[in-house]
């Protein structure tokens, strides 16, 4: 299929700590016939700096990102929060003439993986099976920022989320119903460190909700949330597993 140049944007913590998510993303895109490149000079989109209020430092990284990806027609990222960083917040960081054109294109053509599948490739079903009870964790930035799902706060009758549609297309999958359908996991980036007590308390509440709903695996499009939840799951020696949606769509088992 002729999409033009597709660039793979791999978040820093996926590159360094969760390479399997990046590999699953790569294999999935290949299976869907997408030709892509992984620009090796990329490091980080600047979200940690931005979230802490260090816009100056974040801007330096944003400029680097724009430079690296400016010649791609599409940029695909297996993370709702990093994609959100580019689409929603880069405009606050890049106001120099030089960065402006690069940035405009990047902002309108950076997609989280699932929305790339649904909105660009027009793929809503994946030929695969995942016969397990899944707790679908709708990570905040992707949900409310990118519109990957239908937030529980909003009154938008009759809409189903795009990621939900992809998940439901897998044979045998059972999405459990939790008490709170889209409460935050409590990670919040640097929040998890500077407000550790609150962060862990919220995370443990989420885990209990998934447990009580009967989930075997917690799935999300953001591995940062999963990293936080998994840290608590393993500390509390619970039996839940966590998987990134790319891994499931790529055919991995828990």
């Amino acid at each position, binding site marked *: 299929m002729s999409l033009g140049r597709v660039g793979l944007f*791999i978040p*820093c913590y996926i*590159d*360094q*700590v*969760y*390479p399997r998510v*990046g*590999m699953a993303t*790569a294999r999935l*895109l*290949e299976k869907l016939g997408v*030709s892509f*490149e*992984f*620009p*090796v*000079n*990329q*490091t*980080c989109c600047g979200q*940690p*700096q931005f979230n*802490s*209020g*260090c*816009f*100056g*430092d974040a801007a*330096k*990284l944003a400029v*680097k990102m724009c430079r690296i990806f400016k010649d791609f027609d599409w940029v695909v990222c297996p993370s709702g929060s990093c994609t959100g960083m580019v689409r929603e917040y880069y405009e606050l960081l890049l106001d120099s003439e030089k960065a402006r054109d690069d940035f405009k294109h990047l902002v309108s053509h950076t997609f989280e993986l699932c929305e790339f599948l649904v909105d660009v490739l027009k793929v809503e079903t994946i030929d695969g099976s995942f016969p397990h009870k899944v707790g679908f964790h709708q990570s*905040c*930035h992707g949900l*409310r*920022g990118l519109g990957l799902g239908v937030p529980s*706060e909003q*009154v938008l009758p009759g809409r189903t989320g795009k990621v939900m549609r992809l998940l439901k297309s897998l044979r045998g999958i059972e999405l459990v119903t939790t008490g*709170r359908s889209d*409460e*935050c996991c*409590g*990670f*919040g980036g*640097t*929040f998890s460190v*500077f*407000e*550790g*007590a*609150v962060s*862990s*308390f919220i*995370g443990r509440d989420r885990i209990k909700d998934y447990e009580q709903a009967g989930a075997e695996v917690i799935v999300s499009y953001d591995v940062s949330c999963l*990293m936080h939840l*998994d*840290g*608590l799951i*393993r*500390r509390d020696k619970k039996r839940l597993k966590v998987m990134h949606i790319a891994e499931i769509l790529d055919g991995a088992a828990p």
Partner: protein
Amino acid sequence: MKSHARLAAAFLKQEERAHWHDQALWYVREKRDRMAASVPDWEDLRETAQAIKRHALANLPRYLEEFERSAAARGAIVHYALDAGEHNRIVLEILKGRKARLIAKSKSMLSEECGLNEFLERNGVEIVETDLAERIIQLAGERPSHIVLPSIHIRKEEVGDIFHEHLGTERGESDPTRLTRAARAHLREKFLAAEAGISGVNFAVAETGAIVVCTNEGNADLGNSLPDLYIAVMGVEKVIPKTRDLSVFLRLLSRSATGQPISAYTSHLLGPRPGQEMHIVIVDNGRSEILRQERFHKAAFCIRCGACLNTCPVYRRGGGHSYNYVIPGPIGTILAMHRDLKKFKDMAYASTLCGSCTAVCPVKIDIHRQIVLWRNEVVRAGYLGKAKSVALKTATLGMKSTRLFRMGGWTMRKLVRILPPFVFNNRLTIWGKSRDLPKMPARSFRAEFRAYSRSKTDVSESGMNREG
């Protein structure tokens, strides 16, 4: 002054209480959701509400003057106060003018903001809060922990203790109905004896000079109907252009605040009742400053519904007293920043930026976006704190250079894999205090991908995925 992080951590130590508090507020959020879903035009109403606010606040002097004229024509006496101090002095002067020493007061967040009660008490005035929750915390000597449900943090047994001490109810009585009846009797006496009533204002209608006050208890109405002196205090931003605009805000307010279709009483007062002197005090106290800030002006749209507090996962877990400003939670944060950036800076970091607040706000304030923008203000003012600044600057250096990034990552993975888990997963490391570190992989993605790409035998032009 303790930071939000410390105060919240302390609150969370009482796990059962924290869970109870979280559940209580989530329940209110759920009621809000059901109510919102029952209004087909809900999202359009929010849009219109914001549009009305934009218009009203962009033309505030005109509408304030119109309101003033209309209210004065009905017999109300209108005052303007630049700041909290002036507001307090004006109220005291009015009370002194009628020798009023016992005041029946209904809820007003503005008066909390100005510290009115303490000021009046210092000047020999007895001020009795008549909103049940406000009375409970007044007797307990506490600050409100929520702008709509001020005593949400207090359990019924504790209310029983407070009432036993101050109202003479039986020791150990904790039944909400009996306690409420006791409060009704006690406060009815105060209403009948009060020499003046003071209340806040939910909306002030420019077109007619009406002030609108919403309550479930009817306390504001007793307070503004019984005494011969009534003072309504309001922020400048409470003015709305027309009567019909009330329909938009009232349909959103109670549904957002408590999950009710409307409050039990929605009172429209146009001037004093016969034989009564009515004053309206219009207060700036920093609101004009908020309106002049491009990034932050929407904070002035707030109609004080409290929905953002109810929906905030951090507020629900840590409670309102973990925030040092008079108004807690998300809206409290973006208002506190204007009040005193240095003093309240920790509030800006008491958020996961989940965005739920923005999604529930009836007037569509971009609360979570403002919170992160305020973090930038904290950094620019040099208030971030050495430890955080150094950590982030180091991280930036490491990210700017691809080589440094790869080396840093490799080192981290190596160390975590080599060293025994307890080095990181212990109470002393911030992450490891309550979570395990993730298992570190042997190779980074880039290394894996390079190996994977090289191992593929298919080298056709379009099929080969390569490193760029």
